[in-house]
């Protein structure tokens, strides 16, 4: 049976069983992943798989079932369970499926050529990137190179009599290398993902970056515990944005579990900060014509010149808050109920060249890697492990490893005083280089 017909049939069966509203989220996905180490193919994995999630509302109660077996008896069992489960839970007047049949037009998120490009060519690409990196002085070992791609079709249908679908592709490759010196061992990783194979960065770029990351961190020096400026490299953007995204999640806000919950319309940080959530960007890795429950996506300003403009909502949380869905229903896959999440989410570029940010810093740390959970969305505190470079008098002095950085939300967001012009919009969660005036650094 055609997937659209299948989805419509399941919805009909749910209504027959007693559901007042029903939705089917169906996903069909092809995946390929390849790994190479020391020139040899280490693994090849390829598969096609699918599954569907059934969301029903009966008596304002929500039931859900997911299944990857489309035989009639398994589908029937899942429909029965979804409706029965709905009867078991609490009624909530905000349970509602979206009625809007519209789509947002998105350009170029599907590469029709991807599957036709031979596996050999994809293997050669990662063999090449590994070889190039191993030839760079200082690199002593490969930790492997890998390639991955996926091609998927999403179909959503609900009892408001609409069916929406889109196809998308993604591909990416990356590598890890090791630089050794005496007893020292330093690892460097780099990767890049795109919607189209032809847009992937050249192997020389990736090899060079991974090698540099490994080699430049050799011979680190200890750092005294101190307060100093912190410059965050674009590679560690998630350290700031990750917790921020959870804090602007409309559901967390409603539950009082966000440090930004009461800050809508207020200034939350430096005027230099503008943050955008864009579900519509051409070729964007997180672009889609509709969100995880079929609501058209948008391009929204979340923070404008330091003022918090709004939160992210799906249909349920939006109704509860008395606003419309912002098209931010996220879906981990067919086995997940809609949650709330961002699309292409970024801190807008500033005017300053990253090298000038370093030059303007008399004492600080250029952070290249952060470990830990980043900003705590509940209270806004930040604490994490870090490595990077100590900066003295506007110059990189020496690498530092095993330090910690910590600060409160206020120190971080109000402390941002320089923003770089080096925003890479090919990533889906991204920021340019930013400087925070002063944070606590833990060292020796």
């Amino acid at each position: 049976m055609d997937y659209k017909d299948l989805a419509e049939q399941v919805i009909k069966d749910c209504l027959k069983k007693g559901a007042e509203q029903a939705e089917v989220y169906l996903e069909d996905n092809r995946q390929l992943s390849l790994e190479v180490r020391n020139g040899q193919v280490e693994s090849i994995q390829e598969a096609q798989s699918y599954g569907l999630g059934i969301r029903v509302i009966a008596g304002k109660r929500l039931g859900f079932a997911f299944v990857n077996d489309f035989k009639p008896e398994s589908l029937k069992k899942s429909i029965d369970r979804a409706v029965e489960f709905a009867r078991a839970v609490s009624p909530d007047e905000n349970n509602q499926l979206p009625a809007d049949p519209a789509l947002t037009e998105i350009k170029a998120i599907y590469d029709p050529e991807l599957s036709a490009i031979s596996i050999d060519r994809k293997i050669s690409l990662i063999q090449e990137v590994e070889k190039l990196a191993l030839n760079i002085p200082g690199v002593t070992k490969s930790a492997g190179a890998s390639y991955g791609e996926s091609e998927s079709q999403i179909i959503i249908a609900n009892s408001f009599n609409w069916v929406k679908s889109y196809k998308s592709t993604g591909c990416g490759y990356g590598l890890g290398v090791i630089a050794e010196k005496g007893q020292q061992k330093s690892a460097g990783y780099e990767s890049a993902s795109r919607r189209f194979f032809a847009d992937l960065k050249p192997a020389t770029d990736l090899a060079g970056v991974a090698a540099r990351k490994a080699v430049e961190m050799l011979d680190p020096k200890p750092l005294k515990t101190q307060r100093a400026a912190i410059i965050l490299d674009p590679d560690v953007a998630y350290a700031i944005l990750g917790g921020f995204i959870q804090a602007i999640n409309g559901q967390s806000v409603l539950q009082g579990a966000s440090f930004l919950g009461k800050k809508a319309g207020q200034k939350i940080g430096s005027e230099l900060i503008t943050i955008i959530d864009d579900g519509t960007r051409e070729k964007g890795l997180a672009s889609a014509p509709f969100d995880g429950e079929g609501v058209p996506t948008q391009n929204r300003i979340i923070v404008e010149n330091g003022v918090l403009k709004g939160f992210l909502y799906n249909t349920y949380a939006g109704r509860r808050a008395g606003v419309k869905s912002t098209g931010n229903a996220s879906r981990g896959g067919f086995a997940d109920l809609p949650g709330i999440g961002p699309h292409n989410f970024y801190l807008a570029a500033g005017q300053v060249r990253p090298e000038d940010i370093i030059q303007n810093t008399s004492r600080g740390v250029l952070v290249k890697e952060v470990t830990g959970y980043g900003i705590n969305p509940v209270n806004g505190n930040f604490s994490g492990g870090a490595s990077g470079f100590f900066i003295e008098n506007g110059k990189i002095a020496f690498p530092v490893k095993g330090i910690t950085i910590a600060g409160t939300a206020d120190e971080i967001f109000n402390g941002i005083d320089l923003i770089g012009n080096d925003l890479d919009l090919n990533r889906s969660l991204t920021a340019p280089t930013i400087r925070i005036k002063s944070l606590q650094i833990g060292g020796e």
Partner: protein
Amino acid sequence: MTNLWPELKPMARRRFMSLSLQGAVALAVSPAMVKNLLAGEDRSRLEISPGLLQKTIATALKRGGNLAEVYVENRVSRSIILEEGQFKSAVFGLIRGAGVRVIDGDKTGYAYSDELTEEKLQRAAEVASFIASSGKKTQAVSIKEQRRPSYVTVKIPLEEVAETKRMEIMKRAEEAALSYDSRIKMASIDYYDETRDRIIANSEGLLLKSSLPLIFFIVQTLATGNNTSHLGRERLSRHAGLEMFDQDTPEKAAKEAARESIAMLEAKEAPAGKMDVVIQNGWGGVLVHEAVGHPLEADNIAKQTGAFVGKLGQKVAADIFTMVDDGSLTGFRGTTDFDDEGTQMKRNVLIERGVVVRFMTDILSARQLKMERTGNGRRENFRYYPVPRMTNTFIEQGKDKPEDIIASTKSGLYVQSLSGGSVDPTTGMFNFTCREAYLIENGRKTAAVKGATLIGSCLDIITRIDAIGNDLAFGPGICGKGQSAEVTAGQPTVRIRGINVGGTRARG
């Protein structure tokens, strides 16, 4: 570090991926019971003929290879969320599929299918077979079903439990949390259970079947006061039937989460810098799980990249330090009767009195290193091929009294519970976030502190452990390594001399 393209959306996973309540453990029960469980109302019986398995293995080996394997899985799951006084949702899941793997030298070919038809299994075997190029031909041994001892017992099978029974348990937890203190503003209870059936067959003649129940129960409480908020958490998990809650009661879990939320409302800013750290017994063992356990997984060793390469037989820690991985502890979250490649579970001493004595292997790394199979080949589900993973990992019991360890620490940090952390197995650099921590001043636990991070490198940290308590305990958790696995981490109270702590203020 294993996920090189986090921006690509992974294949659809089961609900709860954010909490990663993935199931992975084997309940070896009597054959009669397996039959019973499999015939449960929700379970289309997982059946596949030995002839089809044998044929799939033969196809997988047609271009050569050392080993071919078919892994078949059926998973029935339920999850219920109780939040803000409401049962927000109830979810039922039915997922099945099979994966075919070929190992040829150092290479792995893998393909999977959602459908268990001959046509799809043959196709998966074809795809997996393409990896083979060594020309090494292996004759598959005829498969024959084997029986294995069991480390999981079930009194109240999950299939026989009404939804309302599960909801009652959740309600009990909620009530206990909310009545603990008026500053507890919200309690959220996540209930998850599943039954996972596995069939594993390989070209060595292996044929094994099992059915395993798993329960994961999470209580989170949000306390608000003193101009701040704290989300406390407690988790319960076992491979067991609903009788799990007789011992690990929902009330006990709720009170523990609530206690943490309230205690942390008073927390001051954590100090920054190097200091002595005492870690409470139980889930705190996750620190050595990350820092020492991951680098002891044999894939890093076979690839010659791991921090412990060349360390076998060498002394890396003090005599008091012994570390064990044991997948056969009855009913534990990390327990199975056999791993996802069919290797028997057992107690594996990894570091004995400070000396590295064993790495954790799967079939591939055991072959590469010419070491024994330790039963650590695990996978999240049929969409992944197995890799070396920990099970129940812990620091062995010591002799010190926990109170003496604190009393003999002049100043430092007492870590009551850790959130979790990560390690780069190549360099051994790790980090951890503390959920609940206190200062130690003049040998006494004093003020609560928030936002502390612990960081260091694995080879350094184990040389700094100088006191180990006599109070070994465990906690359940989730471990991610490109795919997730159920684990427990355990330890007695432990002191580490001089670890780097990240806090928001300079040490006063």
